[in-house]
């Protein structure tokens, strides 16, 4: 067994350091370890907190192989946190998969001693069972993010097998905390705008993890010899319900959590499907004041419509008009239905296990939901989001 790597004397590259997890990792590496850190940055606009630190900012895109090669040169450890977070599905996929390929190639060429790849629990699919471990099969789910991360993991394993690159994969669960986009800021914004909703009372299991606990596992994964060739789930390891999780934000904002039952979702989907049928689309259009004024002014069609109007029995006419009005209302104000992956995620009852990380790496998550949320709320207040 080789000795652990020393972060203090290592040259370290972080991709995605202007983001949430990568940014916090950079703070730990520079402030605690005084490590020699370089960060590959695509958008300087997002790097204001990073720019405060003793790091070297390198401008470059993951899809630019030359920039990636230059960034990895002479590095001992690479933390690959970047992924395709924006753009079209194809652009996101390319940034995640091709970007990982470029980074792996550069790391292999540079002879790095550890490549820590930040993946996601979503690679196991939205509802993989009651006990989720690193051995739970990877499962494509037609979600761009999750599917691209599976392909990126496959590349990571290929580079280990064919090029001998010492790799470790870390799969974070629901990561929240200061500067978290998806599971903090976006939730706050949705609650503020009245668009946030629980599904089935929020009774599913939220596999939460505070960002500093993810960073702890990333750092362990980077130095422990036992981590090479392994994947680890980064989670707190205790289950809380989604209702418990979101209630922290709701209390902070002073709002009531809304709920959608699966039955209501099914009904609203049915109605949306009805609207898409040609005759209902026509009725919906015909029910609009604009269409009616146009039809009235058309000499032939207007006359025909008025003649038809006179011949239709009153009760049938009323029923048709009510149906058309309902279709039009659905078209104008479509219900905000959650996407399927959200429904699956919010209803899933699986608990992510962290035994492997605890056993092999000594991982010890430090923030239960109350502690993590308390820090998160401090940040939300500090930056004026609440």
């Amino acid at each position: 067994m080789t000795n652990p790597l020393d972060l203090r004397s290592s040259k370290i590259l972080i991709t995605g350091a202007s983001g949430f997890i990568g940014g916090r990792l950079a703070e730990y590496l520079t402030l605690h370890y005084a490590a020699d850190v370089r960060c590959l940055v695509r958008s300087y606009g997002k790097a204001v907190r990073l720019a405060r630190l003793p790091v070297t900012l390198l401008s470059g895109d993951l899809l630019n192989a030359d920039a990636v090669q230059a960034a990895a040169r002479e590095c001992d450890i690479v933390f690959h946190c970047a992924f395709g977070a924006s753009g079209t599905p194809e652009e996101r996929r390319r940034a995640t998969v091709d970007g990982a390929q470029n980074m792996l190639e550069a790391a292999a060429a540079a002879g790095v001693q550890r490549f820590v790849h930040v993946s996601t629990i979503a690679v196991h699919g939205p509802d993989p069972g009651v006990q989720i471990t690193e051995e739970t099969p990877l499962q494509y789910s037609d979600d761009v993010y999750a599917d691209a991360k599976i392909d990126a993991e496959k590349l990571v394993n290929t580079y280990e097998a064919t090029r001998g690159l010492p790799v470790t994969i870390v799969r974070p669960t629901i990561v929240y905390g200061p500067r978290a986009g998806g599971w903090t800021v976006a939730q706050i914004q949705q609650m503020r705008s009245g668009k946030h909703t629980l599904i089935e009372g929020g009774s599913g299991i939220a596999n939460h993890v505070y960002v500093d606990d993810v960073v702890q596992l990333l750092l362990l994964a980077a130095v422990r010899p036992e981590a090479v060739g392994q994947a680890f789930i980064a989670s707190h390891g205790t289950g809380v319900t989604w209702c418990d999780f979101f209630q922290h934000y709701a209390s902070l904002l002073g709002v009531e959590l809304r709920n959608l039952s699966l039955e209501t979702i099914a009904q609203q989907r049915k109605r949306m499907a009805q609207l898409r049928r040609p005759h209902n689309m026509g009725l919906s259009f015909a029910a609009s004041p604009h269409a009616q004024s146009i039809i009235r002014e058309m000499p032939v069609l207007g006359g025909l419509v008025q003649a038809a109007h006179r011949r239709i029995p009153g009760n049938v006419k009323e029923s048709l008009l009510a149906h058309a009005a309902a279709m039009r209302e659905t078209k104008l104000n479509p219900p905000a239905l959650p996407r399927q992956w959200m429904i699956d995620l919010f209803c899933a009852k699986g608990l992510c296990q962290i035994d492997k990380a605890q056993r092999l790496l000594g991982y010890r998550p430090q923030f239960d939901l109350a502690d993590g949320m308390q820090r998160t709320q401090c940040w939300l207040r500090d930056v004026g989001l609440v």
Partner: protein
Amino acid sequence: MQSPLLSPAEFAADAILEERTPVHEMIRLGIVGCGYVTALSHLPASLLTPQVAVTALADLDLSRAQEVAQHYHIPVATADYGELLGQVDGVIVAVPHNHHAAVALDFLQQGIPVLVEKPMAMSTAECQQMIDVAAAKQVALAVGQVRRFYDSSQLVKRLLETRFLGDVERFEAQEAVLFDNFNASPFTLQPPAGGVLFDTGPHVLDALHWWLGDFAQVAYWDDAIAGVEANCRLEVTTTNGVPGVIELSRTRRLANESRIWCEQGVITISAANAYGVTIESAHFAGPISAAHVVDADQARQITPFFARQLQNFAAAIQGQAPLLAPGAEGMRAIATMQRCKAAKQPMATPKWAEIPEQVIACLP
């Protein structure tokens, strides 16, 4: 001599269009640096300024210069600003902050008037050198403190000069430009020119100096650890003994306004309204505006004020008006920022940003 405080009517766009300057009398203007402020502010403003015609652009990134030149039908685009010498009657310098002085001096030494973007330079020594050369060559040196041309800013100046609400007792200024919203230029995040103090600071500090005078005392905190600060705080006292607090940020949502407490009321100046201010006093309460503003979107439109700035520069070149923000005025904010950096203290780390002891115990 014409007052440098120009009324909105003097710059109404229709009045400008009715009185087009003959082409042969136009000032030929060059612009060095084709970044955001040039493309989004100076060039649109030039279209509202009949006295000038932008005839040449320079940028180290030639393709960028060509792209902007094509968009605005400007005949010359070059990567070498030296080519502008002899071709222009005045120049706007809008390059990264730490190059302001060197580029401006190259033109001033050739007797070409300069409007240099804020901050005027990186030090008072550089500022003084620019002022001295401009004086020796007898050419205009203007600083792009465009907020001096805002109706709101000029209104505050008059309210304070006339002691409309009595003597000033204290003030606060908060301003945040959240960088997540746009793709910032790399130099704004790297030493020596980066950081919120040298970026947002010149606007806020220049306005405060213009309204309230220089600062006798300055205490300064920021959150830079080795790079450039995203947040800073100043506690100051003016030479008249008025205390004030200034907060600038790139990460926190702040009020984006200045508030001045006077003996008989408070003046609030919003960064999002260039046209008016709000007064709260026992005798009068409500918004007052120098121009009719239709909505919040219009209140944010600052191109007309860049046009005023450009017209003031043109008038100064022609000897028709004094500059509203000459080099000596631009240097005041630089002097304060220089004092800040010299007196820098670390900002307290918020609890959420600390590296917790219990995690450290678990780290490798």
